[in-house]
């Protein structure tokens, strides 16, 4: 049952003349993923392959005095042991902007779970047994488990010396700083107008502190890679969403030429942001080098929890408004809990800070976002990327303001939302969705205006917001068409679950007027695939898709001009359809024409495509944002004031796909991200006792299940048509993450008149808030 686009005519209104784009075709990865034949990195194996396991620090903060691994080397099945003594010739510390995370501990360990040593053995059990013989002497140091502790004047420092790193260039109004306070690894600031002066002339000023929970990605496929180091060539198969930046980082760490590093990416069992940059790869590669054997390093779920998390956050937000409800000025200080290493924190800070205003008509903004290091799991990219934290605070405070002014929260939003096309901030691009349309849609669907006012029941709204498409991302794509019309789409966007392979293939099939099953999407190999910065930032359909479309157009033009030459006519007189040239009533099959000209062995046409937003120093982030992603949310809750339990009766979310390339895939993104956001809103998330993670395993970590939802959970897909992608497409991967928590908290206040400013919205917090209010 392979997907076949010929004969599919289920086009909706907007796609009257499109055949493949806009159709709910089965995903091109459907058969492998439903029959068990899809190959993931966990399935990659080689003869003689060894298995790696690592020794992790039991201490949150300690100096590593000595490591004795001599006994491990003699244990059964062991082929290589790796400690800090095996790092000669390497630059063994990695990171995004700031290089601070060592492959294995060098001078200190900085969190419970920090990697101290690694072993490669014939089996995982043998590797674990060998690790148990390694003796590490630690000198314990005081630890900082929370942002507040870490910022105290006398707090112990995770890094006494400044790690190597950079501050990226910013444009108008934005700036970045390093180490400007105790355990501060980065600050992003954005200013426009003069907020402090403006507050003085506002009728009302609101100051609120919001706290954001710390979820773990819980991608079902763990962090995993398989490495080979043969001759001079490093080869790694990995579950990684940015293999080209990984190759660059590996080249730096291993002091190795990039052309002798080959990264390959099979199907990925999801990442939600976690699978960027170095995770398992440096250890697998180094062990492969030491053992001269292929090495597989596959983490357990418990280890995933010790490798990457979302950023917990404290957000102080101050907003000045006029008596008539006009939004004037907003300032804010966000503290992100970065965990023990900088990882992507500077980038998340940039986005959290930049997105804190929300899509409203403020004239004065003054936002700082600080990354604070703590002795906990390193925090990194997580779907929503700072936008989830920012939307939680921003959209909660909009309701607080509305209630204080005696206004309906929906009305106040309608009054202050920016208009379609209005620039976000000076120098920025225009917002490419009509937010009022989306807000009215979810409010109508949930029955917001007609709701009965019963104590204990309530409804809340939220407009989640982020920019989309990444900053300054170049995208390249290549199309190859064989003699018989087989199409290869080669580009660096990875199929991580989001359906990019299908959507991009649909664009190619549409452009080349071919059925979808003629388009193949080879798995990424850095030796052959055109460069890409990574599958992140909801960039596939707004940036990569343009490059893909350009490549397909170039290939098509080459085919048409070849055919026009052969038929001695103008390209305007011919059409390409199903790999046949139509000229009036004549049909000329291309294979025959190609072999007549190029010989019986045939030929391949190629097309190259490129896309990149222009550099623009007047734009705060140095390029105008490519697109803007919104998630509209409406929640109806019933609150049991005896138990504090929140029952979610309805959850309506909506994203704007601009133009849905594949509507079912878009729906899956909206619903999946909304349910993911429920974790941070209503579930316990990562629970720490001091610096000790208490629930970091599959049994204790509670995730939303099908039974946590009910038929009141609905998504509505909008196609407003204003996106920058092909056919007006926009990104949908993250938008519906953003409004969920605030819509629920807003509904809780609507229900019981109590405002909860801290996530997750646990029964204990609900009861405490009720107590505090009475």
């Amino acid at each position, binding site marked *: 049952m392979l997907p076949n686009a010929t004969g599919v005519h289920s086009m909706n209104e907007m796609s009257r003349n499109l055949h493949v784009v806009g159709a709910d075709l089965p995903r091109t990865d459907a058969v492998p993923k439903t029959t*068990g034949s899809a190959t993931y990195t966990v399935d990659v194996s080689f003869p003689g392959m060894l298995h790696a396991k690592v020794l992790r620090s039991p201490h949150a903060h300690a100096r590593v005095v000595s490591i004795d691994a001599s006994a491990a080397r003699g244990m059964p099945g062991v082929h290589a042991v790796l400690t800090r003594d095996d790092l000669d010739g390497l630059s063994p510390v990695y990171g995004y902007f700031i290089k601070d995370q060592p492959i294995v501990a060098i001078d200190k360990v900085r969190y419970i779970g920090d990697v101290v040593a690694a072993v490669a053995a014939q089996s995982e059990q043998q590797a674990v047994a060998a690790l148990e013989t390694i003796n590490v002497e630690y000198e314990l140091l005081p630890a900082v488990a929370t942002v507040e502790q870490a910022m105290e004047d006398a707090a112990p420092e995770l890094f006494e010396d400044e790690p190597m790193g950079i501050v990226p260039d910013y444009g108008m109004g934005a700036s970045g700083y390093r180490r400007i306070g105790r355990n501060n690894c980065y600050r992003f600031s954005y200013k426009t107008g003069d907020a402090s002066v403006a507050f003085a002339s506002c009728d009302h000023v609101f100051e609120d502190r919001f706290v954001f929970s710390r979820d773990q990605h819980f991608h079902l496929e763990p962090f995993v890679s398989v490495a080979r180091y043969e001759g001079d060539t490093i080869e790694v198969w990995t579950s990684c969403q940015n293999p080209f930046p990984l190759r660059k980082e590996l080249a730096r760490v291993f002091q190795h030429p990039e052309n002798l590093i080959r990264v390959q990416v099979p199907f990925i069992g*999801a990442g939600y942001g976690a699978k960027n940059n170095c995770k398992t790869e440096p250890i697998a590669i180094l062990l492969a080098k030491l053992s001269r054997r292929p090495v597989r390093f596959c983490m357990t779920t418990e280890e995933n929890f010790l490798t990457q998390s979302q950023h917990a956050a404290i957000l102080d937000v101050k907003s000045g408004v006029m008596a008539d409800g006009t939004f004037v000025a907003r300032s804010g200080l966000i503290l992100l809990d970065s965990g023990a290493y900088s990882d992507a924190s500077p980038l998340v800070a940039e986005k959290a800070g930049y997105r804190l205003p929300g899509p409203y008509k403020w004239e004065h903004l003054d936002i700082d976002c600080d990354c604070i290091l703590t002795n906990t799991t390193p925090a990194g990219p997580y779907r929503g990327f700072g936008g989830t934290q920012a939307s939680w605070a921003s959209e909660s405070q909009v309701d607080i303001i509305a209630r204080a002014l005696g206004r309906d929260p929906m009305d106040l939003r309608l009054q202050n939302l920016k208009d379609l096309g209005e620039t976000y901030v000076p120098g920025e691009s225009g917002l490419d969705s009509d937010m009022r349309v989306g807000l009215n849609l979810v409010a109508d669907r949930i029955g917001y205006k007609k709701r009965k006012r019963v104590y204990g029941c309530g409804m809340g709204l939220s407009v989640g917001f982020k920019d989309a498409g990444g900053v300054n991302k170049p995208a390249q794509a290549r199309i190859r068409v064989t003699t018989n019309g087989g199409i290869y789409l080669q580009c660096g966007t990875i199929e991580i679950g989001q359906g990019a392979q299908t959507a991009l293939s649909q664009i190619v099939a549409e452009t080349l007027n071919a059925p979808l099953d003629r388009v193949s999407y080879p798995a990424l190999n850095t030796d052959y695939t055109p460069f890409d910065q990574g599958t992140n930032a909801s960039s596939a359909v707004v940036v990569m898709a343009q490059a893909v479309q350009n490549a397909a157009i170039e290939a098509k033009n080459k085919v048409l001009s070849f055919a026009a030459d052969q038929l001695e006519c103008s390209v305007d007189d011919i059409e390409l359809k199903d790999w046949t040239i139509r000229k009036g009533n004549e049909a000329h099959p291309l294979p025959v024409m190609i072999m007549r000209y190029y010989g019986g062995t045939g030929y391949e046409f190629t097309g190259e495509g490129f896309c990149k937003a222009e550099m623009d120093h007047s734009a705060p982030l140095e390029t105008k944002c490519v697109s803007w992603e919104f998630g509209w949310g409406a929640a109806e809750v019933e609150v049991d004031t005896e138990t504090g339990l929140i029952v979610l009766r309805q959850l309506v979310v909506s994203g704007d796909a601009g133009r849905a390339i594949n509507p079912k895939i878009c729906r899956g993104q909206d619903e999946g991200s909304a349910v993911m956001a429920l974790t941070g809103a209503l579930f316990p998330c990562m629970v720490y006792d001091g610096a000790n993670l208490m629930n970091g395993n599959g049994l204790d970590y509670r995730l939303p299940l099908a039974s946590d939802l009910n038929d009141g959970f609905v998504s509505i897909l909008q196609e407003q048509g204003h996106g920058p992608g092909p056919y007006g497409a926009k990104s949908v991967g993250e938008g519906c993450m953003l409004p969920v928590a605030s819509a629920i908290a807003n509904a809780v206040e609507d229900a019981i008149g109590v405002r909860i400013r801290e996530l997750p919205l646990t029964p204990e917090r609900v009861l405490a808030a009720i107590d505090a209010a009475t």
Partner: protein
Amino acid sequence: MMSADLFNVTFRLNGSETSFHVRPEEMLIDVLRERAGLTGTKLSCDLGACGACTVLVDGKPSASCVTFAWQVVDRDIRTIEGLSSGDGDLDPVQAAFIEHSSFQCGYCTPGMIMLARALLDENPNPNRDEVRQWMSANICRCTGYEMIIEAVQDAAERNRSSLYE
């Protein structure tokens, strides 16, 4: 090399009688993935919590990560690879998952499909709520579940209509 602490287990695997010499602590999932080469069954939490490793043991959904290999002696094991018919026709559950786009990364999918198959074998006519409750045995972090529930309901209908044909 056969050592004293290995013992022989025989069971039916996707319809064929199969034997392996296993260690006492060896899990069913390791036998399936590493000995039988059936890598469609996926390991995730390794604690019996997520259901990514679900296979059918005598028709009942079981977490193969917490099932010892010796526990399945003489049992009938079905994995995702044994679901489609010999001539490649997909099971109605697989077809419905494709039709309804009920997977994203696909890592939970083999387990979800086996779980759904077990439901329909036990109850060919489940209502939406029964589907929701049953499918809550497994975790999907990608889809938000609704499209999975729709596929299972649709598969039940396909099953029924093929029965009455």
